């Protein structure tokens, strides 16, 4: 029996390692390539570790291509977008979850309906609206559509807030606290997990967002990471080395964030009610 169990354990480990290999290999290749000169990537054994290890690619993207600008732009937009999205969604979620008011159900179903609208449907009129307001090619265009909260985040937070026992809220009301007071003193401490989750979702979304920035901005100074990196490749040569170096730099903050908060990302899954 123990031999069988030992065999199964070994098999299990091998299978898992294979799976991990599938997920890690593209990352490993991109890391290798980020440190190679372009000629080596185009050569035959493109996927081997660099034989001419070089930091040049990173130097190039920062000096020749304003990569720092891209980082700064993306960081600025992501931070603003996240703060607004989390804050305003929390306010709305609390209202939906714990306050009885006329029209509550109708408005909430309206939010849910908006979830099904494909993003591209809204982009054309958004572009026209931004153009008319003279806001294309500004930071405003990049975060305005998202900063006031999104149906998805509102939905997510509302599910969580519904798990806060109603008695606590009622008790606070009887104590004479207004709704904002309740939010601040009672809900906020209890809602920390979902706030963290919503923050991570917003950050990853803002950081990697591609289609809308592609449409809404066209000046080199205002590029965000996703569009800037894509542009490395649309010149005459396919500058793989720069693209991969750039995407590596772009990835690092996300990985750090993920490593710290990975438990909460798993939790976010529970809160959308999918498990119930």
């Amino acid at each position, binding site marked *: 029996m123990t031999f069988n169990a030992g065999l199964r354990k070994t098999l299990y480990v091998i*299978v*898992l*390692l294979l799976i*991990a290999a599938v*997920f890690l290999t593209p*990352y490993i*290749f991109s890391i290798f*390539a980020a440190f190679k000169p372009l000629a080596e990537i*185009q050569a*035959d054994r*493109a996927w081997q570790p660099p034989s001419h290890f070089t930091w040049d690619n990173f130097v190039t993207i920062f000096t020749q291509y304003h990569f720092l600008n891209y980082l700064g732009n993306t960081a600025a937009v992501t931070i603003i977008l996240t703060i607004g999205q989390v804050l*305003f969604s929390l*306010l*709305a979620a609390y*209202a939906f979850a714990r*306050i*009885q*008011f006329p029209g509550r159900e109708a408005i909430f179903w*309206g939010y849910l309906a*908006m979830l*099904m609208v*494909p*993003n*591209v*449907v*809204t982009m*054309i*009129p*958004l*572009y*026209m*609206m931004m153009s008319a307001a003279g806001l294309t090619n500004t930071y405003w265009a990049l975060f305005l*559509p998202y*900063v*006031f909260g*999104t*149906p998805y985040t509102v939905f997510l937070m509302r599910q969580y807030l519904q798990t806060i026992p109603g008695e606590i809220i009622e008790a606070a009301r009887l104590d004479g606290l207004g*709704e*904002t007071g309740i*939010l601040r003193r009672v809900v906020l401490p209890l809602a920390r997990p979902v706030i963290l989750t919503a923050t991570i979702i917003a950050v990853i979304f803002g950081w*990697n967002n*591609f*289609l809308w920035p592609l449409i809404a901005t066209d000046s080199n100074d205002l590029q965000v990471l*996703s*569009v800037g*990196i*894509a542009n490395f490749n649309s010149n005459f040569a396919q500058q*793989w080395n720069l693209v*991969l170096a750039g*995407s590596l730099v*772009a*990835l690092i903050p996300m*990985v750090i964030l*993920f490593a710290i908060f990975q438990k909460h990302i*798993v939790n976010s*899954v529970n809160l959308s*009610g*999918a*498990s*119930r």
Partner: protein
Amino acid sequence: MTGVAQDLPVKARPAPAKKAKNHVPAAERKRHLAAYGLLAPSLFGVLVFLLIPVIFVFVLSFMKWNMLNAPAFVGFSNYIDAFRYEGAWHALVVTFWYFLLNIPAQTVLALGMAMLMNRKGRFTAVIRVLCVLPYLAMPVAMGVVWQWIFAPQTGVVNTLLHLIGITGPNWLNSPEWAMPVVAFANIWQYVGYNMLFFLAGLAAIPPTVYEASAIDGATAWKRFWHITLPLLRPSMLFVVVTGAIGSFQVFDTVYVMTNGGPGNATTVMNMLIYNNGFVGFRFGTASALSVILFLVILVVTLVQFRYFQKRAVYEMV
């Protein structure tokens, strides 16, 4: 359940929800106002950045405008042109093909991985985290890596195939293989993330259920098929519905890996809308295409909800 309420004496029934219109106590009115106040910012966002654009798009789909010349009303001709010249039908087929390549495989793999890694232990936990890592990558950046991995002469895949004597095709330039490769890239990116939903679903199943079936002598397969799978229905619904909506809206990966090519073999609906709107500046036609896509997603989503039965939906809400 239905019989119970009738047995209660009239007094004990809950008080009617409606009150006399004018008799709203001051405290409650204050609460309503507070609620509207809290709702205001996000409602503003939804109205201005979601609802109005949707209405705008419907109106625009009946007009012809390139933002250089004046707009003109053209009735249904955008819809007709969409199918006759712009390749809307082909794009829908391609999008649906992508959906078929992507969602079933991804769902099964995510479920399989969740079943496999649903146990305690440091090693398993680490591998689980590694599986979710692809979710963090910029789709744009990964698309480029895939382009390079699948390159005809210098790519990893063809190099490996060459070692065992097969000449790999020119993956991203071949009309047959381009879409499967794009689907593969997308599966790689999101299967770990979807695995998390199934893990959560599995965690919610009480172990007593399994113990009971073990006593009855059920095999592992029977347990999976008759107990686990039905209880996972809410997770399944979530994964499949959000996956479907997502796959009908795929853009980033396609744009970077193939830009709709070769020819129009990977021109999914979103790509067609983008090309019509932001490359061709035919905003009227692009709007018509958006409306068509929206309706398709609506129908597909409703069908899926119907399939998974209403029960699961209310459990979500």
